[in-house]
């Protein structure tokens, strides 16, 4: 790790990349560190929060606490909570950043470099990570708010209603903002009989798990598919895609960190000391653990096709096969990938706890499942995580099966729009499904996973492999 950081400071891009390529094992350690760091950081912050409540004025003289003193204590605490969430997400992101940072070129030029090199390495990395994280957090907040509003409108219009119509004037566009403010202003209730530490920790873990996945999600590409083909022919290295951390194990990383969320869910259910929550948590554990398998198997088909675990490589491979006609989901590219897409999508619905697989929070059975006891900002973390997870899954589906940012005609902006459009369309389909279908039962969910999705996913994987081998 230190060697990596040192290299980063000395010769930012090439050495970092080289080291990264050589030290794949490091990444495994980093993932472990990520999980450990999350828990550790949460512990410290939560401990401080706990002690701060009544004794707020007596706390030290850092700027943050100074401002906190000026505010009403409830608001201050809540802001601190929000901050904690952000910091945690940053920590979650920092680790992958440490491993493969495509640092903007200006840092290596001119007078900046010596000064940058004078700064301790970890600070450089942390600053970059923080900036990117804040940007992503902002982007995701906008996305969550917008899709929250869209979901209400979509469901309303499907059901012959109008949905929110007041806030903000035009069709209630500001409803989500109002809700966000309301979440912050709500009283933060911890049930008396709850396990306070884990009760408070759980939302952050769910949130950080969802958010850390964004680090390895690609946004767009700077070069066109033709240039890529040319570069490949010439045997030159390809420029990085627009991605926070172009891991060469991107898919594995995403699958790994998104399943961190289930730890938070179990924690929430257990710590609430509510039987409905507990049932929800148990269901969720069984569900997510099972559905990881068909989801991962379906994604492996794309990996087999492209020969790489990096999402950028997977998309580029599709681009070089043909910007529209080369998507993996087309039967002429590979007849099995269409089925794999279906399997992946169904599995992703289950992994994100969306209807018809929303049994961990089935409101008509379990009141609200694992988040029954949560209110205010803590509840909004769950909500936020759900939407971010939806987006992550949709981007993964677009990248692995639907050609990612192609057709982009060489324009990065268009590419971003195309990828965003595909992902949002898939999110939209999730919404339509949610408002159309009833909920399945726990045993049926397991039946679907183990007896339907998994065998077919394996068939797809084997079929894809055979197809790839047979076609050379």
């Amino acid at each position: 790790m230190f060697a990596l950081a040192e290299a980063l400071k000395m010769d930012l891009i090439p050495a970092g990349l080289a080291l990264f390529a050589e030290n794949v094992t490091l990444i495994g350690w980093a993932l472990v560190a990520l999980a450990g760091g999350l828990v550790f950081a949460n512990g410290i912050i939560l401990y401080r929060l706990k002690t701060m409540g009544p004794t707020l004025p007596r706390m030290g003289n850092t700027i943050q606490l100074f401002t906190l003193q000026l505010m009403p204590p409830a608001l201050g605490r809540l802001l601190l909570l929000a901050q904690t969430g952000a910091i945690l997400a940053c920590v979650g992101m920092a680790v992958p950043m440490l491993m493969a940072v495509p640092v903007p070129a200006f840092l290596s030029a001119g007078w900046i470099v010596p000064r940058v090199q004078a700064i301790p390495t970890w600070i450089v990395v942390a600053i970059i990570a923080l900036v990117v994280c804040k940007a992503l957090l902002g982007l995701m907040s906008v996305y969550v708010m917008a899709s929250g509003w869209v979901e209400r409108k979509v469901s309303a219009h499907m059901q012959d209603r109008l949905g929110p119509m007041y806030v903000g004037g035009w069709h209630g566009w500001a409803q989500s903002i109002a809700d966000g403010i309301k979440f912050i202003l709500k009283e933060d209730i911890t049930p008396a009989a709850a396990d306070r530490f884990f009760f408070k920790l759980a939302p952050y873990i769910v949130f950080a798990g969802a958010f850390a996945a964004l680090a390895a999600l690609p946004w767009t590409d700077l070069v066109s598919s033709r240039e890529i083909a040319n570069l490949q022919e010439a045997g030159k290295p390809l420029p990085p895609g627009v991605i926070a951390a172009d891991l060469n194990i991107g898919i594995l990383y995403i699958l790994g960190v998104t399943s961190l969320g289930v730890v938070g869910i179990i924690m929430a259910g257990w710590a609430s000391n509510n039987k409905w929550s507990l049932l929800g948590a148990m269901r969720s554990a069984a569900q997510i653990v099972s559905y990881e398998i068909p989801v991962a198997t379906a994604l492996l088909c794309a990996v087999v096709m492209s020969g790489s675990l990096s999402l950028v490589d997977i998309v580029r491979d599709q681009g070089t096969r043909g910007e529209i006609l080369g998507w993996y989901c087309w039967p002429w590219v590979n007849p099995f990938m269409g089925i794999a897409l279906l399997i992946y999508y169904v599995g992703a619905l289950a992994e994100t706890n969306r209807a018809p697989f929303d049994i961990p929070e089935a409101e008509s059975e379990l009141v609200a499942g694992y988040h029954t006891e949560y209110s205010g900002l803590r509840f909004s973390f769950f909500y936020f995580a759900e939407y971010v997870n939806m987006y992550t899954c949709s981007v993964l589906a677009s990248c692995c099966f639907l050609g990612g940012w192609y057709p982009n005609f060489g324009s990065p902006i268009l590419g971003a729009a195309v990828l965003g459009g595909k992902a949002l369309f898939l999110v939209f389909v999730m919404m339509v499904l949610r408002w159309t279908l009833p909920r399945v039962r726990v045993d049926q969910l397991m039946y679907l996973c183990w007896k339907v999705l998994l065998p077919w996913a394996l068939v797809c994987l084997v079929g894809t492999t055979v197809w790839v081998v047979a076609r050379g």
Partner: protein
Amino acid sequence: MHGDWVCGVYEYFKAIFLGIWSTLVGMRITMARFFDYVKDPLYQGVTVQYPTERWKVAEGYRGMLFNDIDDCIVCSQCANECPADCIIIDAEKAAKGEDLGKTSNGTPKKIKAWRFDIDLNHCLYCGLCTEVCPTECLIMTDAYDYATYSRDGLYLLFARPEKYTTAPAGASPAASPAPEAKPA
């Protein structure tokens, strides 16, 4: 045995097919509604933007009660009929020679009401009282939003004893504050 096996496989594939098919059928319905919501005139009127748009109630809607006390002959039929005992009348025969005036349909009034209260907190909005009223002075208006901050707001006082020339023994002629409802 062999047949069972075939049957099981058939069921398996049939369930998968039906699952996908019925999902598509359901989505066709919901998406159709989603897209022609604006076009379909039949269901346009379902949502009313309540405080700004108002629901137009039907003729003969049974809303808040109102008594036009000038037309009331204080016959107490309404109070007797009311199943919830929420009309409270304190009345007295008019003194000899005292003229209480006439109702709008010409019936002379013979009884004066010191108190004519309706406790809407207990009212069933059944309309039985308005049906028996001989002068049709007690009516149900079409007011339907009468939320108040306290229960007193739903305790309606209709009598206007200040109009009478003689006061009852021991009662103040001014409108009394809302007393508790007592059984009629």
